[in-house]
Protein backbone atom coordinates (compact mmCIF):
# COMPACT_ATOMS: atom_id res chain seq x y z
CA UNK A 1 0.00 0.00 0.00
CA UNK A 2 1.26 3.47 -0.85
CA UNK A 3 2.22 5.60 2.12
CA UNK A 4 -0.34 8.31 1.28
CA UNK A 5 -3.17 5.80 1.04
CA UNK A 6 -2.08 4.26 4.34
CA UNK A 7 -2.22 7.61 6.16
CA UNK A 8 -5.50 8.62 4.59
CA UNK A 9 -7.19 5.32 5.46
CA UNK A 10 -5.63 5.35 8.91
CA UNK A 11 -6.81 8.84 9.77
CA UNK A 12 -10.26 8.22 8.31
CA UNK A 13 -10.53 5.10 10.47
CA UNK A 14 -9.33 7.01 13.53
CA UNK A 15 -11.90 9.75 12.95
CA UNK A 16 -14.60 7.10 12.48
CA UNK A 17 -13.76 5.33 15.76
CA UNK A 18 -13.56 8.64 17.64
CA UNK A 19 -16.90 9.78 16.22
CA UNK A 20 -18.60 6.46 16.97
CA UNK A 21 -17.20 6.70 20.49
CA UNK A 22 -18.47 10.22 21.12
CA UNK A 23 -21.92 9.53 19.66
CA UNK A 24 -22.24 6.32 21.70
CA UNK A 25 -21.27 8.23 24.85
CA UNK A 26 -24.01 10.73 24.09
CA UNK A 27 -26.67 8.06 23.50
CA UNK A 28 -25.58 6.14 26.60
CA UNK A 29 -25.79 9.28 28.72
CA UNK A 30 -29.12 10.41 27.29
CA UNK A 31 -30.65 7.03 28.08
CA UNK A 32 -29.41 7.18 31.68
CA UNK A 33 -30.82 10.62 32.54
CA UNK A 34 -31.22 12.11 35.09
CA UNK A 35 -27.58 12.34 36.14
CA UNK A 36 -27.12 11.24 39.75
CA UNK A 37 -24.27 9.82 41.81
CA UNK A 38 -26.01 6.52 42.42
CA UNK A 39 -25.91 2.81 41.64
CA UNK A 40 -29.17 3.28 39.74
CA UNK A 41 -27.47 5.65 37.31
CA UNK A 42 -24.56 3.23 36.80
CA UNK A 43 -27.04 0.41 36.19
CA UNK A 44 -28.92 2.49 33.62
CA UNK A 45 -25.61 3.10 31.83
CA UNK A 46 -24.22 -0.40 31.79
CA UNK A 47 -27.45 -2.19 30.98
CA UNK A 48 -27.83 -0.16 27.80
CA UNK A 49 -26.01 -1.31 24.62
CA UNK A 50 -24.70 2.16 23.67
CA UNK A 51 -22.08 2.19 26.41
CA UNK A 52 -20.41 -0.75 24.67
CA UNK A 53 -20.34 1.24 21.44
CA UNK A 54 -18.34 3.80 23.38
CA UNK A 55 -15.93 1.11 24.54
CA UNK A 56 -15.53 -0.19 20.96
CA UNK A 57 -14.89 3.34 19.73
CA UNK A 58 -12.19 3.89 22.35
CA UNK A 59 -10.45 0.56 21.87
CA UNK A 60 -10.61 0.89 18.08
CA UNK A 61 -9.24 4.42 18.19
CA UNK A 62 -6.45 3.34 20.53
CA UNK A 63 -5.17 0.56 18.24
CA UNK A 64 -5.57 2.64 15.08
CA UNK A 65 -3.61 5.45 16.75
CA UNK A 66 -0.81 3.13 17.87
CA UNK A 67 -0.55 1.63 14.37
CA UNK A 68 -0.48 5.06 12.74
CA UNK A 69 2.14 6.39 15.15
CA UNK A 70 4.49 3.62 14.13
CA UNK A 71 4.80 5.24 10.72
CA UNK A 72 3.24 8.70 10.70
CA UNK A 73 5.10 11.79 11.93
CA UNK A 74 3.74 12.92 15.28
CA UNK A 75 2.80 16.49 14.29
CA UNK A 76 0.30 15.83 11.52
CA UNK A 77 -0.85 12.73 13.40
CA UNK A 78 -1.62 14.79 16.49
CA UNK A 79 -3.56 17.37 14.48
CA UNK A 80 -5.47 14.77 12.50
CA UNK A 81 -6.35 12.83 15.63
CA UNK A 82 -8.24 15.83 17.00
CA UNK A 83 -10.22 16.52 13.87
CA UNK A 84 -13.04 14.42 15.28
CA UNK A 85 -14.13 17.59 17.04
CA UNK A 86 -15.41 18.77 13.67
CA UNK A 87 -16.86 15.46 12.48
CA UNK A 88 -18.71 14.97 15.77
CA UNK A 89 -20.07 18.53 15.64
CA UNK A 90 -21.40 18.02 12.12
CA UNK A 91 -22.79 14.57 12.91
CA UNK A 92 -24.70 15.96 15.91
CA UNK A 93 -26.59 18.32 13.64
CA UNK A 94 -27.80 15.36 11.66
CA UNK A 95 -28.29 12.76 14.43
CA UNK A 96 -29.49 14.91 17.33
CA UNK A 97 -31.07 17.83 15.44
CA UNK A 98 -28.64 20.23 17.03
CA UNK A 99 -27.92 23.69 15.71
CA UNK A 100 -24.64 25.05 14.43
CA UNK A 101 -24.79 28.30 16.37
CA UNK A 102 -22.42 31.13 15.53
CA UNK A 103 -20.59 30.59 18.83
CA UNK A 104 -19.95 26.93 18.03
CA UNK A 105 -18.74 27.63 14.49
CA UNK A 106 -16.39 30.40 15.66
CA UNK A 107 -15.22 28.30 18.61
CA UNK A 108 -14.59 25.29 16.38
CA UNK A 109 -12.58 27.42 13.94
CA UNK A 110 -10.36 28.79 16.73
CA UNK A 111 -9.89 25.32 18.20
CA UNK A 112 -9.06 23.93 14.76
CA UNK A 113 -6.50 26.70 14.14
CA UNK A 114 -5.00 25.92 17.55
CA UNK A 115 -4.76 22.21 16.79
CA UNK A 116 -3.03 22.97 13.47
CA UNK A 117 -0.51 25.17 15.34
CA UNK A 118 0.14 22.39 17.82
CA UNK A 119 0.56 19.94 14.95
CA UNK A 120 3.19 22.17 13.34
CA UNK A 121 4.83 22.68 16.72
CA UNK A 122 5.33 18.92 17.03
CA UNK A 123 6.69 18.70 13.46
CA UNK A 124 9.16 21.59 13.48
CA UNK A 125 9.97 22.30 17.08
CA UNK A 126 10.16 18.71 18.24
CA UNK A 127 13.66 17.76 19.35
CA UNK A 128 13.96 14.02 18.79
CA UNK A 129 15.49 11.70 21.37
CA UNK A 130 18.71 9.94 20.37
CA UNK A 131 16.68 6.73 20.17
CA UNK A 132 14.26 8.23 17.63
CA UNK A 133 17.11 9.52 15.46
CA UNK A 134 18.61 6.07 15.60
CA UNK A 135 15.46 4.31 14.45
CA UNK A 136 14.82 6.97 11.81
CA UNK A 137 18.23 6.51 10.21
CA UNK A 138 17.87 2.76 10.32
CA UNK A 139 14.65 2.89 8.33
Amino acid at each position, binding site marked *: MKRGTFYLLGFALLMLFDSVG*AISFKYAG*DHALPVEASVAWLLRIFTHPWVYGAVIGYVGAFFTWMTLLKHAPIGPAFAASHLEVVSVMLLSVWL*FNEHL*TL*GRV*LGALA*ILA*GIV*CLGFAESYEHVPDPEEVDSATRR
Partner: protein
Amino acid sequence: MSVTTPITPLIATLWLLNVIIDTVGQLAFKAAAGDEAAGDGLVRWIYMARRPWIWIGIGSYVVEFLIWIAFLSLLPLSEAILLGSINIVAIMVAGHFLFGEKLTRLRLSGILLVTLGVAIVGAVG
Protein backbone atom coordinates in the same frame (compact mmCIF):
# COMPACT_ATOMS: atom_id res chain seq x y z
CA MET B 1 -35.40 29.29 21.99
CA SER B 2 -33.73 26.24 23.46
CA VAL B 3 -30.86 26.00 21.01
CA THR B 4 -28.27 26.58 23.70
CA THR B 5 -28.23 25.14 27.19
CA PRO B 6 -27.17 27.31 30.11
CA ILE B 7 -24.05 26.05 31.86
CA THR B 8 -25.36 24.93 35.27
CA PRO B 9 -23.09 24.41 38.31
CA LEU B 10 -23.37 20.63 37.77
CA ILE B 11 -22.20 20.94 34.15
CA ALA B 12 -19.33 23.23 35.16
CA THR B 13 -18.28 20.83 37.92
CA LEU B 14 -18.32 17.82 35.59
CA TRP B 15 -16.32 19.78 32.99
CA LEU B 16 -13.72 20.76 35.57
CA LEU B 17 -13.51 17.24 37.02
CA ASN B 18 -13.08 15.83 33.53
CA VAL B 19 -10.15 18.15 32.78
CA ILE B 20 -8.46 17.50 36.13
CA ILE B 21 -8.89 13.73 36.10
CA ASP B 22 -7.88 13.41 32.44
CA THR B 23 -4.72 15.41 33.11
CA VAL B 24 -3.88 13.38 36.21
CA GLY B 25 -4.41 10.18 34.22
CA GLN B 26 -2.26 11.25 31.29
CA LEU B 27 0.53 12.43 33.57
CA ALA B 28 0.37 9.20 35.56
CA PHE B 29 0.69 7.16 32.33
CA LYS B 30 3.59 9.36 31.30
CA ALA B 31 5.27 8.82 34.66
CA ALA B 32 4.74 5.05 34.33
CA ALA B 33 5.92 4.82 30.72
CA GLY B 34 8.84 7.23 31.06
CA ASP B 35 10.52 5.48 33.99
CA GLU B 36 13.85 4.41 32.55
CA ALA B 37 14.61 2.03 35.39
CA ALA B 38 11.70 -0.15 34.30
CA GLY B 39 13.59 -2.33 31.82
CA ASP B 40 12.02 -4.04 28.80
CA GLY B 41 9.29 -6.45 27.83
CA LEU B 42 7.49 -8.39 30.52
CA VAL B 43 9.89 -7.16 33.21
CA ARG B 44 8.84 -3.60 32.38
CA TRP B 45 5.16 -4.42 32.79
CA ILE B 46 5.75 -6.16 36.12
CA TYR B 47 7.85 -3.19 37.27
CA MET B 48 5.06 -0.77 36.27
CA ALA B 49 2.34 -2.91 37.89
CA ARG B 50 4.20 -2.79 41.22
CA ARG B 51 4.23 0.98 41.23
CA PRO B 52 1.17 3.19 41.71
CA TRP B 53 1.43 5.28 38.50
CA ILE B 54 -0.15 2.93 36.01
CA TRP B 55 -2.98 2.16 38.47
CA ILE B 56 -3.61 5.86 39.02
CA GLY B 57 -3.80 6.20 35.23
CA ILE B 58 -6.24 3.32 34.80
CA GLY B 59 -8.35 4.47 37.75
CA SER B 60 -8.51 7.98 36.29
CA TYR B 61 -9.70 6.59 32.97
CA VAL B 62 -12.52 4.63 34.60
CA VAL B 63 -13.74 7.63 36.59
CA GLU B 64 -13.33 9.94 33.60
CA PHE B 65 -15.38 7.56 31.44
CA LEU B 66 -18.37 8.03 33.77
CA ILE B 67 -17.91 11.75 34.20
CA TRP B 68 -17.72 12.23 30.43
CA ILE B 69 -20.98 10.28 29.93
CA ALA B 70 -22.72 12.42 32.55
CA PHE B 71 -21.30 15.63 31.04
CA LEU B 72 -22.40 14.73 27.50
CA SER B 73 -25.92 13.88 28.61
CA LEU B 74 -26.44 17.40 29.98
CA LEU B 75 -25.35 19.36 26.90
CA PRO B 76 -25.79 19.24 23.14
CA LEU B 77 -23.02 17.00 21.78
CA SER B 78 -21.80 19.66 19.34
CA GLU B 79 -21.20 22.04 22.25
CA ALA B 80 -19.81 19.47 24.68
CA ILE B 81 -17.23 18.07 22.27
CA LEU B 82 -15.83 21.57 21.72
CA LEU B 83 -15.72 22.34 25.45
CA GLY B 84 -13.84 19.07 25.97
CA SER B 85 -10.97 20.31 23.77
CA ILE B 86 -9.59 22.16 26.80
CA ASN B 87 -8.01 18.88 27.88
CA ILE B 88 -5.35 19.32 25.18
CA VAL B 89 -4.36 22.62 26.80
CA ALA B 90 -4.42 21.33 30.37
CA ILE B 91 -2.15 18.40 29.56
CA MET B 92 0.39 20.59 27.73
CA VAL B 93 0.52 23.11 30.57
CA ALA B 94 0.86 20.34 33.16
CA GLY B 95 3.57 18.67 31.07
CA HIS B 96 5.43 21.96 31.08
CA PHE B 97 5.37 22.33 34.86
CA LEU B 98 5.92 18.69 35.80
CA PHE B 99 8.20 17.35 33.08
CA GLY B 100 9.80 20.59 31.93
CA GLU B 101 8.35 20.22 28.42
CA LYS B 102 9.03 23.37 26.46
CA LEU B 103 6.24 25.79 25.61
CA THR B 104 7.53 27.03 22.28
CA ARG B 105 5.98 29.96 20.41
CA LEU B 106 3.92 27.69 18.15
CA ARG B 107 2.72 25.63 21.11
CA LEU B 108 1.74 28.77 22.99
CA SER B 109 -0.20 30.05 19.96
CA GLY B 110 -1.95 26.70 19.73
CA ILE B 111 -2.80 26.74 23.42
CA LEU B 112 -4.16 30.29 23.22
CA LEU B 113 -6.28 29.54 20.14
CA VAL B 114 -7.80 26.38 21.61
CA THR B 115 -8.51 28.22 24.87
CA LEU B 116 -10.10 31.08 22.96
CA GLY B 117 -12.29 28.65 21.04
CA VAL B 118 -13.44 26.91 24.22
CA ALA B 119 -14.11 30.29 25.86
CA ILE B 120 -16.27 31.39 22.92
CA VAL B 121 -18.31 28.19 23.03
CA GLY B 122 -18.63 28.41 26.81
CA ALA B 123 -19.75 32.04 26.70
CA VAL B 124 -22.07 31.98 23.68
CA GLY B 125 -23.04 28.30 23.48
